[in-house]
């Protein structure tokens, strides 16, 4: 059976050891501590109380809803916008390289810096967005103060920042499509739209899947941008799982915040794995 085996299984040992120490053991301990009231020194076992509290209290479970909205919207917008930009950037335009760089720039700036900058842009009375709107005769919008809008303002900023990485993945995907497909199609008289629909989209499917999975998981555990822009506020309007977990930790509720992390882990696993499986099944060779 193992005639073709050249290397000893022991070669796996170092990697497995690191995996065990840094991933498996912390995971099991965190599973345990999520069921305790814990102050780093002493703990009391409380069973599933922490989880019950998480699901029953509004200030905690609002995060589950917001996290899903955040992940689905940022991921969806990035997938669509980045694809359009990538198609545009793959076409024969003269300033392609410069535009590609410009599109990538937001990704080079630290997320916190982007958060602080956009908070200033979105200031209701002094921000540049509202100044522009008022210049054209509109009335200013309270981007981050309006509870119905605040989450979407942060989502828009996240998309602005994250669309570049998605674009790069798409550009690579589109560039790897064999040019002969397009030549054959144009000889057959296919229009630009037909070529896009029947060649580009199906053949850059692997790139699209990477973008979907990466941006979805990224959205699920997003924290830095939200923390820099709103801190979860006003009230709890933009709180996501990660910011709630952080707040419980800061308050010293270590057991409760560990429970939040476990919930977040389960949530990501339950959504991301089937999603990936589904997407892979759709890929064409």
């Amino acid at each position: 059976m193992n005639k073709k085996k050249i290397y000893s299984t022991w070669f796996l040992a170092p990697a497995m050891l690191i995996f065990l120490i840094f991933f498996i053991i912390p995971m099991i301990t965190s599973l345990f501590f999520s069921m305790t009231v814990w102050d780093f020194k002493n703990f009391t076992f409380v069973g599933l109380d922490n989880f019950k509290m998480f699901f029953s209290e509004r200030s905690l479970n609002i995060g589950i809803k917001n996290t899903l909205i955040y992940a689905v919207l940022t991921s969806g917008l990035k997938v669509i916008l980045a694809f359009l930009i990538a198609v545009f950037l793959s076409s024969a335009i003269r300033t392609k390289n410069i535009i590609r760089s410009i599109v990538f720039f937001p990704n080079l700036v630290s997320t916190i810096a982007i958060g602080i900058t956009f908070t200033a842009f979105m200031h209701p009375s002094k921000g540049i967005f509202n100044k522009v709107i008022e210049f054209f005769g509109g009335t200013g919008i309270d981007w981050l103060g309006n509870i119905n809008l605040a989450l979407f303002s942060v989502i828009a900023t996240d998309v602005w920042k994250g669309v570049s990485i998605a674009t790069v993945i798409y550009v690579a995907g589109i560039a790897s499509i064999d040019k002969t497909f397009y030549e054959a199609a144009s000889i057959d008289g296919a229009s630009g739209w037909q070529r896009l629909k029947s060649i580009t989209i199906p053949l850059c499917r692997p790139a699209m899947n990477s973008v979907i999975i990466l941006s979805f998981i990224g959205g699920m555990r997003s924290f830095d941008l939200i923390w820099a822009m709103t801190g979860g506020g006003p009230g709890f309007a933009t709180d996501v799982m990660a910011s709630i977990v952080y707040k419980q930790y800061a308050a010293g509720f270590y057991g409760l915040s560990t429970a939040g992390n476990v919930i977040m882990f389960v949530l990501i696993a339950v959504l991301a794995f089937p999603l990936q499986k589904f997407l892979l099944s759709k890929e064409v060779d």
Partner: protein
Amino acid sequence: MKFRKVTALLLAAALAAGSLAGCGSGKSAEDDSAEAKKVENEVNKTASGEEVTLTMLIDNGTEPDGYEAVLALAEEKLGIHVDVEIRPGGDEGDNIVKTRLASGDMADLCIYNSGSLLSALNPSEYFIDMTDSSVASTFDEAFTKAASVDGVLYGVPFGSSSAGGVMYNKEVYEKYNLEVPETWDEFIANCDVLKEAGENALIGSFGESWTAQVPYLADNFAVLQKEPDFPEGFTAGTKKYATSEAGLRSWQKLAATTPYYNKDYLATNYNDACDMLVNGEGAHYIMLTMALRNIYSLYGDEVNKIGFFPIPGDTPEETGLTVWAAGAIYGNKNTDKVDDIKRFMEFWVSDEAIDAYVEKVLPDGPYHNGYQLPDTAYDAVKVDMQKYFDEGKTALALEFLTPVKGANCPAICQELGSGQTTPEEAAAAYDEDCKKQAVQLGLDWK
């Protein structure tokens, strides 16, 4: 190909060498400064007979001028050199303090809040017992209570007490012929006059959520007038904000302020609000008196344009001052320098040390050890606030009377103040939030 490999190897070697060199030079610089310090300390040694270096962890919101003056004096008088480590304030600061305590990495001196935040630190594990020190008896009851857990005193006051209430711009009051209100209705009537005249009756700085909780927290005097045993009941879990008339009233007052704020109050931050108040862009700002310090450092003597009155109660009798006990210096007991740390802490509250501090940073309120307020103190402190101390109409804020304080208090107040919830909902949400703290502290709440 081979050429490339060789180049890569060379580059890698150069990089490694470079970083080694970097480390090396860094180390030598450190050596140099250590050498310099040694020389410096030797000078001290000849003066005082011994040399000690302590470390102090302090938040970045405290003006350095004041404590640096005292530290310089301590070096001269005690021969104790203190290295200051700066940490952020707010949630991040709490995180750092708790993590450093738990990992045994705390500085020798830790500056931190007194009251409920102290009890959340589990102080008996980490801090020096100051109950029997020579200075313990000089502190007033308010501070002793706030800096003690289970009857053991852990800290000495870092600064003066302060108060929460309404700061107002006297020029705006003169312009509209307003009187300082004695009841909540008079206060709202004043706000209405200002609002109709197109002024910002109230300045809100909800952009920083901790500021949103001051109107609720500073109403504690009125709560205690109606229900003197509220804090004990609250700690025991028998009294709740949602079901106590006096408690609920605080949340109703906070909700009643909503229509009077400046238009962009949800994005305004603390510093902007202080600017607005002193420049007359708003008439009232409900804040802690520490804002006076901030205004003084930016505008100097213009600070005396600012007057102060407590959050008014429903009757003149219910109008009194809600006082914040000073933050404290706690000594790390898990070091071999305990005696020096205690010596330093006792020095910190001596008159000469406070003199040096006050010369740089004026106090936000009376001192806890009876230190005489200087003549240069802000009018709002030495006239408006002192009046209530003289009349004995003061009460500590709730966070100094019970170990339970909900961690989400800022967000809940922000939510209520921005009109997302009703006072009843906010009070109930806060009760629910406090349950988490009670569970953490091992209190038996049902």
